């Protein structure tokens, strides 16, 4: 097995895949298919997590399409799989979208919606907190030097195996009636 050993610390084998796609929701079906197959066939995550990562990426890319990158510009997705350790996924936009938002604003929006007692109203707004937040161990929002946002999520295999339900009993839904 290819590994890198330094001072008796064994580093896991890492695989990095980067995909650049135009800012258009049309391409997301193919990205979801790729994610599902990649996680199923090349990682040790169980199938349920392949579907979950599919949703995480879809939600983050839709966020980038909505807020980050103008039509005609790009979104970059990077998968980094550390064998039998974790899967890290980064989504980068160009900051050219008409509804652009910076990392601090997005972090605040996330924290507000994650707060106990927050009730979701309306059609949109659940994806980042309820899907991306619930199905990742680490979530980082960063401003890119050249403009735009980089959102990175990380899921450790050991946590995926230990707690695979991901059900948040604190969920509250407020209906628009």
């Amino acid at each position: 097995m290819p590994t890198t050993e330094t001072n008796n610390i064994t580093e896991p084998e890492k695989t990095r895949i980067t995909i650049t796609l135009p800012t258009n929701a049309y391409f997301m079906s193919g990205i979801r298919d790729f994610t599902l197959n990649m996680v199923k066939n090349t990682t040790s995550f169980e199938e349920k997590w392949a579907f979950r990562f599919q949703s995480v990426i879809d939600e983050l890319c839709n966020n980038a399409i909505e807020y980050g990158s103008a039509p005609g510009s790009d979104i970059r997705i990077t998968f980094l799989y550390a064998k039998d350790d974790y899967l890290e996924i980064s989504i980068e936009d160009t900051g050219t979208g008409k509804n652009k938002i910076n990392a601090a604003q997005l972090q605040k929006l996330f924290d507000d919606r994650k707060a106990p007692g927050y009730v979701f109203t309306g059609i949109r707004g659940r994806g980042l907190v309820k899907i991306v937040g619930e199905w990742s161990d680490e979530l980082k929002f960063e401003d890119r030097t050249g403009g735009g946002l980089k959102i990175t999520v990380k899921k450790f295999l050991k946590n995926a195996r230990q707690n695979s339900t991901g059900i948040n009993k604190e969920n509250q839904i407020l209906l628009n009636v």
Partner: protein
Amino acid sequence: MTEVNITIEDLANLVQGQATKVVKIAGQLDESNVDEKIQQVYKVVEENPKNLNLIFDLEGLEYMNSKSIGYLTDLYGKITEAGGKVVIAKARPNILDILQVVGLTQLIQAFDNLEAAKSAVATTKASA
């Protein structure tokens, strides 16, 4: 646009004097299609302003995003407020998983098969 098909079938006489429809969704509901396709279901709600029962048959649904879940939540609110009922039947494990993580299964009952979903609608209405 990602492919998705929504067909709506009338279940006459499941509940006496009330409209009951089976909404079959097959394919993938995502950002590219949900705003347009979901209007078929809203049209049914507009045509049946009171006591409408909807059974969502999700056997063929491969993927749904958070906006689709937002629409489902909105439909549930509108229909139940007007005296109707909404249930889900035959959802795949990945669909049930995402409905659970956003908390929607706390509101809408999900059944393994269509007969159980029909019984749930008929029983609740009969005893109401």
